[in-house]
């Protein structure tokens, strides 16, 4: 699960080619950040308060903001509060919990391998399986069923209750 979070981050950042500098859309600032496998930031719905903040290397402006955070929070503007949130957390709960289309890929692969296994077993049945044991041939099974009906097995609601003993056929 942790590597899946990291992998989705990597995919959304456009692959492993962008290392080093990243920019956040609404603040318009750039800072250096380590790529996902090398940080200790892991947040999930079941573990919402990670040990480390998301951005650990801050530029001067962000350090000033962190100093301002130590004072009274009523003096922070809305934009500053959002910037502090984005320093501490990678995504909001809404962003983190967004649904995806991954299940379609998973089900597709599952069905594909079902089909592949079916083809393998078909080939085995044609070229590899031995003869059926005598008890599974049709003649033996017919005689076995006749014997079960003669013994009147489950005559109330089961097998023998469906057999018509006068006409010697299954009841309609």
């Amino acid at each position, binding site marked *: 699960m942790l590597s899946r979070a990291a992998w989705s981050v990597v995919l959304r950042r456009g692959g492993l080619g962008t290392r080093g500098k990243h920019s956040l859309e609404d603040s318009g600032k750039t800072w250096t950040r380590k790529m996902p496998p090398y940080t200790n930031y892991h947040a999930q719905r079941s573990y919402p308060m990670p040990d480390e903040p998301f951005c650990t290397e801050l530029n001067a402006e962000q350090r000033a903001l962190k100093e301002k955070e130590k004072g009274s929070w009523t003096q922070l503007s809305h934009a500053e509060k959002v910037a502090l949130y984005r320093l501490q957390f990678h995504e909001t709960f809404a962003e983190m919990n967004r649904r995806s289309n991954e299940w379609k890929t998973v089900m597709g692969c599952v069905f594909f391998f079902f089909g592949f296994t079916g083809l393998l077993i078909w080939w085995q049945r044609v070229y590899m399986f031995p003869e059926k044991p005598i008890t599974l041939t049709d003649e033996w099974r017919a005689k076995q069923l006749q014997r079960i009906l*003669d*013994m*009147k097995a489950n005559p109330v609601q089961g097998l023998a209750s469906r057999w018509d003993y006068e006409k010697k056929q299954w009841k309609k």
Partner: protein
Amino acid sequence: MASSALTKPQMSGLLARCLRFHIAGAFLVSLGVAALYKFAVAEPRKKAYADFYRKYDSVKDFEEMRKAGIFQSAK
């Protein structure tokens, strides 16, 4: 980025509400399943057995089985 005022969400009693919902639901579901089983499976089965054995002749049944040849001790 001015947002309109949101309604304050429910702040307390969440577990109590969840528990009440689920306990009541569990009662209803289990009683419903039990009632459904009784009237769809158990009662018809009792009736089927009663009807079968009302007109059951065990000697005739035995003779039919003996003629079919399944016994080893009574041919």
